[in-house]
């Protein structure tokens, strides 16, 4: 079966242990970090496995190209110390079960956009930015057949991902396209980071949604009306799996004439939306979620943010109404770009 390709030697030889020392939710010095990582590698229990809020960030912090977060999740599952209460795990795992009909392969051509669990948002895939773009799924009854499964990293259920992902990849491959634009960067992370890390073959080339948007905007450069807005980007956890694509955020902002505000919780220091944290079972997580969201939004407000830009529908759902409450309009990146080209 598929196994995590984790280079233990690299990790044990690491002098910085950025993975844990940079963590924004645990206060860990290098020495402790070394000890705890060793325990984790050896399959022993570690407070890290309990204190981890599953924000994915260590995947980005690790300079060695290792997969500390995937490893943590492996261990959480092996040692049966999941961060979530069991009923929520069961509920989440069942969410990915197709129950409203078999896969219906639509005829599509490239460019092709994979909507994953969010066909209901296909409405915003309109206008010149998306001319000639094929979309699947378009029907909510079909979405489970496209669900990238990566969400289960929050659930200590990496096994579920490995078990289902090959079928999902096959479903997408059935559309006979070489390149697949991923509406959600959770999908991009799945195909570009998770699958390789576990040796799961991906017969198509995933394209990050922002890369697609950027290229389209370049095509339409002359028709862009600069928006002159001050915006903040809410980084989703899965964007930690595609740091190399993060630059497209600023590239796009530049093209459409919006200013990314100066703030504390940006880039590496971005804060999680709090959605996953709030569901976790450990004492104080509910309050932690409140605190993280509060800090995040106050930071935006102080920086004079007018629009909070989202990629992840889950972040949008969790945080959108809160930013709105503070007078900051929540908006998806795609919709922001549409404003610029009309």
């Amino acid at each position, binding site marked *: 079966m598929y196994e995590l390709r984790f280079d233990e030697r690299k990790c044990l030889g690491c002098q910085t242990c950025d993975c844990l020392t940079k963590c924004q939710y645990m206060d860990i010095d290098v020495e402790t970090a070394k000890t705890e990582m060793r325990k984790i590698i050896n399959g022993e229990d570690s407070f890290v496995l309990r204190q981890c809020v599953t924000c994915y960030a260590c995947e980005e912090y690790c300079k060695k190209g290792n997969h500390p977060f995937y490893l943590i999740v492996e261990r959480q599952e092996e040692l049966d110390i*999941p961060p*979530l*209460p*069991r*009923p*929520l795990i*069961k*509920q989440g795992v*069942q*969410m990915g*079960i197709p*129950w409203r009909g078999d896969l219906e392969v639509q005829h599509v051509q490239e460019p092709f956009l994979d909507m994953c669990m969010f066909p209901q948002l296909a409405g915003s895939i309109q206008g010149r930015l998306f001319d000639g773009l094929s979309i699947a799924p378009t029907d909510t009854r079909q979405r489970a057949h496209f669900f990238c499964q990566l969400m289960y990293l929050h659930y200590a259920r990496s096994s579920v991902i490995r078990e289902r992902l090959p079928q999902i990849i096959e479903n997408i491959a059935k559309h006979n396209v070489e390149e697949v634009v991923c509406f959600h960067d959770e999908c991009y992370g799945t195909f570009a980071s998770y699958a390789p890390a576990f040796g799961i073959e991906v017969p198509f080339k995933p394209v990050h949604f922002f890369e697609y948007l950027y290229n389209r905007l370049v095509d339409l450069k002359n028709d862009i009306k600069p928006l002159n807005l001050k915006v903040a980007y809410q980084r989703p956890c899965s964007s930690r799996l595609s740091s190399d694509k993060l630059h497209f955020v600023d590239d796009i902002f530049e093209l459409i004439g919006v200013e990314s505000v100066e703030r504390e919780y940006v880039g590496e220091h971005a804060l999680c939306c*709090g959605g996953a944290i*709030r*569901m976790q*079972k*450990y*004492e104080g997580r*509910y309050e932690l*979620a*409140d605190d993280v*969201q509060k800090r995040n939004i106050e930071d935006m407000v102080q920086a004079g943010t007018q629009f909070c830009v989202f990629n992840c529908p889950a972040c949008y*759902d*969790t945080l959108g*109404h*809160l930013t709105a409450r503070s007078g900051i309009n929540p908006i998806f990146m795609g919709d922001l770009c549409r404003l610029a080209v009309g």
Partner: protein
Amino acid sequence: MDSICQSLAEIVGESHVSNRPEELYVYSRDLGTAEPHLPQYVVSPRTTEEVQQVVKLANREKIPVVPLGGGLTLAGLVMPLKGGIVLDMKRMDSILEVNERARYVLVEAGVSQGKLVAYLDRHHPNLVHSEPGAPGQATVAGNVAIHGQGDLAQPYGFNSDMVNGLEVVLPTGEVCRIGSCSLGQQWFTQHPLPDLGLFLGWCGTTGIITKVSLRLFPRKRIRDMGVFVLEDGDLVPDILYRISHTEMAGDLIAWSQELPVTVSGLHNISIFISGDSEEEMELKRKLIRVGILGEYIRSGTGGLIGLSANVRPRLPRRPPVSTIQDIKKGGGFEYVGAIMPVDTYPECCRRGADISARHDIAYTLLGRVIGRSHAMMFSWSYVFNRADEDSVREAREALYESDDLALELGGIPWKPGVYGQRAVMERMDPNTLSLMKKVKELLDPNGIMNPGNWEVS
């Protein structure tokens, strides 16, 4: 038009009487699984006086009279089992009085739950009634006539316990008022007068309710809800007991259903709270979330979604919009509701799921707490395809089995159809039964009121 039809037309006017096949067809059918029964006449009165004259005529001619409200009991209680006149009360739909200070509303029998909600929203934002959660055309009078409950059941009990007074037309045609209104006072109380509770729960077999005074309650500005998810249904009664102990919750509903697959095999407790300020809300949330649910969450046996100032609640509309009847793409839905001890929740679910499995219908189980865990209304719901006889039959059998199960587990079927009524009366103390019989004979000597229902042989 025969002579009866003629005289009915003289009472309510031509366009509000019919003995034509089209009306008879529509009124011969219930929304549930009950077999059709043709009425001879359909009448839609506008005033108590018209109802009175219709009843006098019917009593003289010994023609059955079946009062109909929203027709949403689904249990066939408004089917003319022995023919006669179906009295569609929905045209009597004036809201006559709201007493803001004494917190009650006086309505005509045909006023719909939807209209009352809209009216209070608009004109009395500080008042709310216990809304039953049926489609909006369910009527206020129909609901109390069957001992219905609503979304204030946990704090305040059955809707029929919220009745301050009634106007009824007796089967012999007299108009009779019950409660303080019978002294010509305000419609603010039924007590301390001698108990005349002869009409609530009788499903229109002892008379026709034409006016109802219903208690209203403080309406809080902010509403919130959370869903507590469990794998182990056995924990539910205890959790309900403890949440109701805090006295911080409003509606409390435990439910478990097979579809959508996401929730399959789980038990959910929907917890509704309301308050006038964020402080009040936060206090209530904390007392429930931390005080009661915290230990389950920490042990990993329960998970909470919502019940936080920072999580947008997915509050249902009042009245809610239901689409469950379309699950089988068949436009059919009926449930057995029963008033059960809260402790029986786990067994109700286990056995209910078995019944559903036997009849190949996805299980849909729900228990709404009534009073401080004094009881719950537990419903076993079954969808069916109206166009497929087998599907209808399966559902009907499942419903019969559910009636028996409710009794077996120590509960009582609520607004049962004829099958359930018989099952109840078989188990009833003979003296109670004969008292019911005497009351019925006293009030309705000719047995014209909704005959075939609650008939003591």
